[in-house]
């Protein structure tokens, strides 16, 4: 067997000898994807720690462990990390990088050096965010926890008045946004230019469609929040007045501009996740996907409609009634393409030869949790209901079901699906399944009670609460413990498998897309030794067996 991408690499600058420098300077899309994953999950656990701190504090009413102010900083830290450093780079940065070029038969992304630069821009953004954590008072030897306390939304005017380190956090947000834009740009050009000969748009795997739709959101929506953060910074430094009511500035305008990005951003998170689902479902049902075109086009239309619905975050902010009605109406439309996808997946499984491997378990679990997240979303899209539920734990539970139970679960599904591709080894499936069970149960125990508490009026971002909500918070706490145990278990299983896993060959799942037809496992540096001519659809199965087969020169032999 030849060398794999772990053994050799191309670098952005020079030809360093040391393995460490080879990783730092690598332009190989697979290595860059792995590095993103390592950094992202590190931050993920920091944010989970912040969340656990909050859960401890909320175990009973009144103050226990931390001050009210620290609680505010904790949920801001949790939100900022989870959103800007974890889930926005998220699936595109990891699997978009690792598998998307493999799926279209490319040797790398279109601008490999830009990709390298983007990764370091992301790291730079993370470092800036870390600097906003503490203020050091050298003369007194004090370290003050000064992270922003505004919530991850930085709403004006409070964000302009607070004396915590909002500016550095905004700068970090801007830099991370730039990194996200450049990732999207790179992927768009890659998908337009580097598809293998014969692969038309409607022959691309659906994950590539998800990445494509996402990239458009990254490209066109992120600049809006970028400039909003810049305006907020200028406001704080120079007092340009734009968001400051004492000069006539309108805080509602800040909310408009912020959500013009941040709402499409949630589709930016979920679309590639749906893409992963569309890969896993046919592979483990051994059937061609039902309604390929509808799934592809629904990704595109979700991305399109996603731009038009930001206003549903502003129902209670003093927007005009006309605009509220328009936004409510438009928001319902998002549910249609999403629903289409769900029915397509279920129709794919119907009469399929379902194999309950770990990735499939995660995917099936997500069908349940995301359905809950999505449907509760429709309830709060209604202006009337939202006036009541806005800023309660109902909303919090809704988006945790959608983001944690949707995006992150599917990210985990993708991790289990592509793990053997990336490392050439297989993890212990029994243990992985136990981990799934813990996560799934823990997650529901953690968040379901919060729907009820929220419905009864438990407000979000509160450090204290009325005694009648105690029981829900305590159930939720237990759920959090189970969930975090499950997380640690899962990562332990995977990390141990990188060392001790059994070698599994290039196509352990009998899947059909191009990334499973590599010459060796793990893949070599420049991917497919020969690029195939693609005159087939991505998921062709016949009697539960893949139809398309290749010889060692990647010519079809069926």
């Amino acid at each position: 067997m030849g060398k794999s991408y772990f053994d050799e690499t191309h670098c952005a600058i020079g030809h360093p000898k040391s393995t460490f420098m080879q990783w730092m300077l690598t332009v190989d899309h697979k290595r860059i994807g792995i590095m993103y994953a390592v950094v992202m999950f590190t931050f993920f656990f920091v944010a989970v720690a912040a969340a656990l701190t909050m859960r401890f504090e909320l175990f009973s009413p009144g103050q226990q462990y931390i001050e009210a102010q620290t609680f505010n900083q904790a949920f801001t830290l949790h939100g900022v990390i989870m959103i800007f450093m974890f889930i926005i780079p998220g699936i595109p940065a990891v699997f978009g990088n690792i598998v998307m070029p493999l799926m279209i038969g490319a040797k790398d992304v279109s601008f490999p050096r830009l990709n390298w630069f983007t990764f370091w821009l992301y790291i730079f953004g993370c470092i800036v965010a870390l600097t906003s954590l503490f203020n050091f008072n050298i003369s007194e030897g004090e370290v003050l926890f000064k992270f922003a306390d505004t919530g991850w939304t930085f709403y004006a005017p409070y964000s302009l008045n607070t004396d915590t380190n909002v500016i550095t956090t905004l700068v970090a947000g801007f830099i991370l946004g730039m990194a996200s834009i450049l990732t999207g740009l790179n992927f768009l050009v890659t998908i337009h230019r580097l598809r293998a000969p014969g692969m038309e748009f409607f022959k691309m795997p659906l994950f590539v469609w998800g990445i494509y739709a996402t990239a458009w959101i990254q490209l066109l929506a992120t600049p809006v929040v970028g400039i909003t953060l810049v305006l907020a910074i200028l406001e704080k430094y120079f007092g340009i007045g734009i968001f400051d009511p004492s000069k006539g500035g309108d805080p509602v305008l800040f909310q408009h501009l912020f959500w013009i990005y941040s709402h499409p951003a949630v589709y930016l998170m979920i679309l590639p996740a749906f893409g992963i689902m569309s890969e896993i479902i046919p592979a483990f049902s051994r059937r061609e996907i039902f309604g390929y075109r509808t799934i592809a086009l629904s990704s595109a239309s979700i991305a399109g409609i996603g731009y038009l619905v930001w206003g549903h975050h502003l129902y209670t902010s003093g927007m005009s009634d006309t605009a509220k009605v328009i936004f409510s109406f438009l928001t319902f439309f998002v549910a249609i393409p999403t629903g289409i996808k769900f029915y397509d997946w279920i129709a794919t499984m119907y009469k399929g030869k379902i194999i309950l491997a770990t990735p499939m378990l995660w995917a099936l679990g997500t069908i349940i949790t995301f359905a809950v997240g999505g449907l509760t979303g429709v309830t709060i899209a209604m202006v009337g209901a939202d006036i009541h539920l806005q800023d309660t734990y109902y909303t919090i539970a809704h988006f945790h079901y959608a983001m944690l139970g949707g995006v992150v679960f599917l990210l985990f599904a993708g991790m289990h699906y592509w793990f053997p591709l990336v490392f050439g080894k297989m993890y212990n499936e029994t243990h992985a399944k136990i981990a799934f069970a813990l996560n799934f149960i823990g997650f529901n125990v953690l968040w379901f009670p919060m729907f009820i508490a929220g419905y009864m009026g438990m407000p979000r971002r509160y450090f204290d609460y009325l005694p009648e909500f105690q029981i829900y918070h305590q159930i939720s706490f237990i759920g959090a413990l189970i969930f975090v145990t499950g997380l640690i278990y899962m990562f332990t299983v995977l990390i141990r498998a990188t060392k001790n896993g059994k070698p599994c060959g290039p196509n352990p799942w009998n899947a059909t897309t191009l990334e499973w037809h590599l010459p060796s496992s793990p893949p070599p540096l420049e991917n497919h030794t020969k690029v195939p001519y693609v005159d087939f659809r991505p998921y062709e199965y016949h009697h539960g067996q893949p139809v398309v087969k290749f010889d060692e020169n990647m010519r079809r032999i069926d």
Partner: protein
Amino acid sequence: MAHDSHDAHDSHVYVPEIAVDREGKEHVVQGWQGDYEGGKLGFWLFMLTEVMMFGAMFLALTYYYTLHQQDFLIASASLNRWLGGFNTVVLLFSALTMGLGLLKMRHGDVKGAKLMIWTTILLALVFLGVKAVEWTAEYHHGIFLGLDALQSGNEHSKPFGQILFFGMYFTMTGLHGFHIIIGIGLMLWLLKRINAQKVTPDHNILHFNIALYWDLVHLIWVFVFPYFYMIGAGDIAGGVVHGH
């Protein structure tokens, strides 16, 4: 991103791969190396992000224009229209020289191309100089970020609409000026690449993209200029209000 189109190992020439289909027909595989169309597409996509950024700022501007129309017109009338107009013409000519430079490069006249790029840089500096004169004059009129006139609640305070107008004026012309500075930097870098023969008549994607960037900077000014300098030009009776 433009320089990515050079292979990391430009020592050996890139030979595209061939894929063979079932009939034995051969198809050229597009590689990322030396992909002119890809480089162009990538840069256009980048420019779209700029469009969205300035689009969002114009949105904010229009938001306040709707709320404070009269104040906006008054504030606009107080800007120096002739300096702004002069700068408009300067940028217009710089767009021409940049375009001609690219044309010369594509037709093999490297020396002429370099001359044109230098001319563009010169015009860009003129633009910045005029801008500096304008801002200084405004500062002496007491209108600048941080001065009393643009703060609320003192005896010099301007009305809300005017504070917002000037706040956005300094922000947007400032950011536009920042783009001009970046543009000058890019052009100097381009000259360096031309001298190093990394940009040649047959390999001019970098030149092409920087010319595009310069046009974009011009394009933004095409909207910034009338929005700030011209909207207050006609007075209620239909005549002209002249600035200071």
